[in-house]
């Protein structure tokens, strides 16, 4: 049986209170430390970007090209992850600085601020790992869950995952369009799609023009070096950020949930779903910063609007709460979690053996949970109590 259905209403309540206490304590402590952290980081990122773009102008010299690509890649990763992702979560809205505010901030990425806040902040964070609700489960092109019906196109799951990672910023940009509704399921008309694509295309165009035309043109005869450098930096950011995000939700033991789970969900149950639906990975300070502290995906999903540099500090407390209540705390090295994710991608390219409710096979635990959750969660908990 899944842990989720074993918990009593009181246990959910207690877990909720314990986690709320951490949240309240940290949020009451917001101040200069957090402001200095994000300002310093933004300064470093902007310096890296200026340095990277400058070095690429001399990209005909191999060392300059390599250094330029390294700086620009690091800049784009910082801009998107520790700065953009976290600022757009509203982690720094309390500062009252329009330049660091979720309403205004935009990132060096083809996805618009508005579309991101819809698909990520709202859909993904509210309905984390709930099938048919959380579009991040496969981004509409992959099969990432046993409970997604198998279709022949999923034979290409690993290849599609590779394409998704390579062009990650563009897939994220068009995620809100739910392209599969038009291409595969035919529930969306071409006109609807066109209208929705308009604001995204406006931003895409600007980003592509900047990186692939204007900056190369500034280098005159050396334009190809700048062009190649920008392609590489964007690619590095795409591969890295997609792997970080996949590691947060798709290592094998991470749970997915049927839609019924969110009916009448209490705060405590929401917290536990976030815990079970996320996974961390370990690393040093640099690893945490470069992953936007999504290496603490569990803490991030519990407290998405808490400044992310605080996750490292509260992680041991969250882990202790998990241990106390017998909840798993999924973590491992970056390599271990990545391998686990790719194993899942390969495995799900084939139809699931367990389809139909057989109690054999590696995924029967998940099946059982799904079955138990489709029943009234209230009666479950009452019985246990």
């Amino acid at each position, binding site marked *: 049986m899944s842990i989720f259905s074993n918990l009593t209403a009181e246990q959910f309540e207690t877990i909720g209170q314990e986690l709320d206490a951490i949240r309240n304590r940290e949020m009451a402590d917001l101040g200069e430390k957090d402001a200095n952290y994000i300002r310093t980081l933004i300064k470093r990122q902007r310096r890296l970007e200026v340095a990277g773009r400058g070095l690429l102008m001399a990209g005909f010299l191999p060392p300059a090209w390599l250094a330029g690509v390294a700086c620009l890649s690091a800049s784009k990763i910082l801009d998107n992850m520790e700065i953009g992702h976290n600022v757009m979560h509203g982690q720094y809205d*309390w500062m009252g600085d329009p330049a660091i505010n979720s309403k205004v901030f935009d990132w060096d990425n083809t996805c618009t601020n508005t579309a991101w806040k819809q698909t990520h902040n709202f859909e993904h964070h509210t309905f984390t790992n709930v099938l048919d609700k959380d579009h991040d489960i496969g981004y509409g092109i992959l099969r990432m869950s046993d409970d997604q019906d198998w279709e022949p196109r999923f034979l290409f799951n690993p290849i599609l995952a590779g394409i998704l990672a390579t062009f990650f910023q563009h897939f994220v940009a068009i995620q809100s369009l739910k392209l599969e509704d038009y291409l595969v399921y035919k529930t969306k008309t071409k006109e609807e799609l066109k209208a929705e694509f308009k604001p995204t295309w406006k931003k895409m165009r600007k980003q592509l023009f900047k990186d692939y035309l204007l900056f190369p043109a500034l280098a005159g005869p050396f334009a190809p070096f700048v062009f190649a450098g920008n392609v590489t930096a964007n690619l590095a950011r795409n591969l890295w950020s997609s792997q970080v995000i996949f590691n947060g939700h798709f290592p094998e033991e991470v749970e997915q949930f049927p839609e019924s789970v969110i009916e009448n969900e209490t705060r405590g149950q929401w917290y536990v779903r976030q815990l079970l639906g996320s996974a961390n990975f370990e690393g040093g300070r640099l690893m945490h910063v470069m992953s936007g502290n999504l290496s603490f995906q569990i803490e991030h999903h519990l407290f998405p609007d808490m400044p992310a540099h605080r996750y490292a500090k509260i992680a041991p407390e969250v882990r202790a709460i998990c241990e106390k209540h017998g909840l798993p705390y999924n973590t491992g090295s970056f390599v271990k979690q990545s391998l686990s994710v790719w194993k899942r991608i390969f495995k799900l390219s084939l139809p699931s053996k367990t389809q139909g409710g057989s109690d054999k096979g590696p995924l029967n635990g998940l099946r059982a949970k799904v079955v138990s959750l489709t029943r009234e969660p209230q009666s479950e908990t009452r019985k246990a109590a």
Partner: protein
Amino acid sequence: MNAMTQTSSRFQQGLTRLLQSRVADILSYPHGVDRYLEVFNPLWSVNEVRAKVEAVRYLTNDSVTLTLRPNHNWEGFIPGQFVQLSVTINGKRQTRCYSPANSLHRADGCIELTAKVHANGFVSRHLREQLSVGDVVLLSQADGEFALPEQRPEQVLLISGGSGITPVMSMLRTLCDEGFSGPITFLHYANSAADMIYASELDEIARTHDNVTLVRCFNDEGEQGELSGLFSREHLYIAAPEFAQATTFLCGPPPMMAAVEKVWEEDGLAERLHKEQFTLAAPQIESDSAEGEVRFVQSEKMAINNGATLLEQAESAGLTPESGCRMGICHACTCRKTAGDVRDIRTGEISSGEEDIQICVSVPVGTVTLDI
């Protein structure tokens, strides 16, 4: 020397034009040029007015006088107008309004702001205790209708109370610098001589300018002022018997302003009285009669209406809505009210239905729903 400054200013103009160009805009997309410039020097910006603190002086025990050198985005001001000054305190941006007190003709291009420091004055205390020379602050462009007219009046009466002295001080200094020859009466109210900001400079101006009459009025008994007590019609007859012929500029605490306004209204002179509400009259918090609740839709929070402004109620509910002047001037706090009635504390007017409101000057009348 002259040629050199000319070249450098031409260079600066060219650079500014380049940084404001469409190309610079695309190259710095989506953050914008300013977000890169500020990394290298906090004063550099193509849009924002930022100023360096050149001097911090303490003219009285409960005030602070700042000399600020704005960057080249500063478009100047008209004596009487105010600016919004923003500083960061414990990571949070705080904005308040102050009127420059300096002369329009000040040679060094700096502006001077004086703030009265209240015991609970969060921002003013920071300005006095923490701000130091070399710090950089954010400014808005000057704004406000309270301003010395381009066509200078023939006779001027300046009435101020407490820290309301700053805008009229700017008017006085400007007129003196211009060699204005018409009669000027400067009637100022303060608690005591020691509390009076710019006391010695005013003495000096009155001594050296025959057309300037200085009338000081202290509230405390036994002080050496020309008058004592609160404003009254009698004061006016003594200080400025020809007040009906003068153009009058008034700035001070709300009760004093109300007393002055009453005289001008009674005499049918309201049109000749220009006034600046410096501090907002605190809303009459009638927590007993406050009814209903305040609902904050986006943040899914709710508070029992306690009669305070919606901004204060939102803040005590743990929200951090954008805000600025907190007196209904800057519109930073404007947000959508989807239902309910609110009273404007400046006018007492009640408005209802779905509309944009300034939450810093609105108190709920019954249950109100805000889209924040």
